[in-house]
């Protein structure tokens, strides 16, 4: 197959599939509730004992307090991912909190939180770290 035709097929195919998926509503992100965040954490960390789940008001993430330590679970497209916060840098951002996990497979994450949420989450994270 001529290279030009192959390139056109590949580029056109990817663009067409992306457009169809987006227009058919398949770009929506998962929304986390306390229940789904708990299930998502246990999926990441089977057998862990969860003490507290605090979803963000917009449902894009939840702070987890568990026997294995503090963690964050967040929407990743229609699915979820999770990471422990040990070793992560958590810093205030203009709209909430910024998480840097020092992990090439999990680049930094900026969460939108209300001012009250941010203050509460910072206190919870600090308490979890002090207890560790």
């Amino acid at each position, binding site marked *: *197959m001529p290279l030009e035709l*192959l390139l056109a*097929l*590949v580029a056109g*195919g*990817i663009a*067409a*599939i*992306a457009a*169809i*998926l*987006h227009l*058919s509503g*398949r*770009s929506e992100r998962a929304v986390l509730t306390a229940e789904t965040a708990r299930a998502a954490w246990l*999926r*990441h960390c*089977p*057998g862990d004992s969860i003490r507290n789940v605090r979803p963000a008001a917009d449902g894009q993430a939840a702070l987890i307090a568990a026997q294995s330590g503090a963690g964050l679970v*967040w929407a*990743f*497209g*229609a*699915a979820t*991912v*999770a*990471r422990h916060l040990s070793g992560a840098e958590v810093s205030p951002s203009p709209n909430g909190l910024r998480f840097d*996990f020092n992990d*090439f*497979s*999990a*680049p930094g*994450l900026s969460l939108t939180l209300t001012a009250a949420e941010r203050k509460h989450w910072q206190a919870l994270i600090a308490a979890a770290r002090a207890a560790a």
Partner: protein
Amino acid sequence: MNGTLSYPDVTQLAVPFFIAAILAELLWIALKNRGGRYETRDAVTSLIMGAGSVAEGLLLGLAAWGGLMLLWRITPLDMGTSLWAVLVCFVLDDLRYYWVHRLGHRVRWVWASHVNHHSSQHYNLTTALRQTWTGTFTFMMVVKAPMVLLGFHPALVLFCGGLNLIYQFWIHTEAIGRLPRWFEAVMNTPSHHRAHHGRNARYLDCNYAGVFIIWDRIFGTFVPEQDHDRPDFGLVHNIASFNPLRVAFHEWAGLFKDIAQPGLSWKQRLLYAFAPPGYSHDGSRSTSAGIKADHLARHPEDAGTPGFDS
């Protein structure tokens, strides 16, 4: 036989079929409201990984081709190009695929390349195309050498490898449940391969087959998909990026970061590169064996069931 034998590049020729099949699967899911799920960024990432893998093959495959042609010149054997030769080559190449794939899950150096194929939390036809960009650096091409030395022309070996990959495309779907028993007994199927993509403890390190599931049955790695324990797709530690560069290189980055830790012995550094994924010098991580053991500690009732029987 001279050295100029050529076969069509079947993976390139199959591109229009791949696109049409993806659209057909998507339409099926939309109409039936079952049979899998698609997510825009996940699918686009998979497709870009597929395109990149083809490009990597075009750019770096020449070195491997040169090596195989060198072997072809020195081997006294020539199996020819008859239909029988093609069939035997196809079966032997599938056996080769089984072992390379098994190494791809059991040796971190090879897993670093293969991991991206398992990095989607979705399982649809685009997942089939989420292929490696770094296969050349695993040096697994050397496993093709015995076939060339046995008298199969490198072009025929690569042709059979291409057919093998095309076969595996259609089994990356949830739209097909189970096929007739005789087919499930001999061939790799969507059901068997869903189990292979499962991150559940039960399904770790099983069903490495490309075309014929018989290799898993022979070598003791077969685990049938269980209706009461549906495969949960993705990695034990799922990645949090749709960026193709991160998808392609994240395990390599982790591997070299581990190797470079201060205070390790040379043996520990080598184990970080070549031991099974999940190895750690301080026991802070779990290999698949450890994950299965942890699961059985929580669920002793699963002992002796498929995936937990050794």
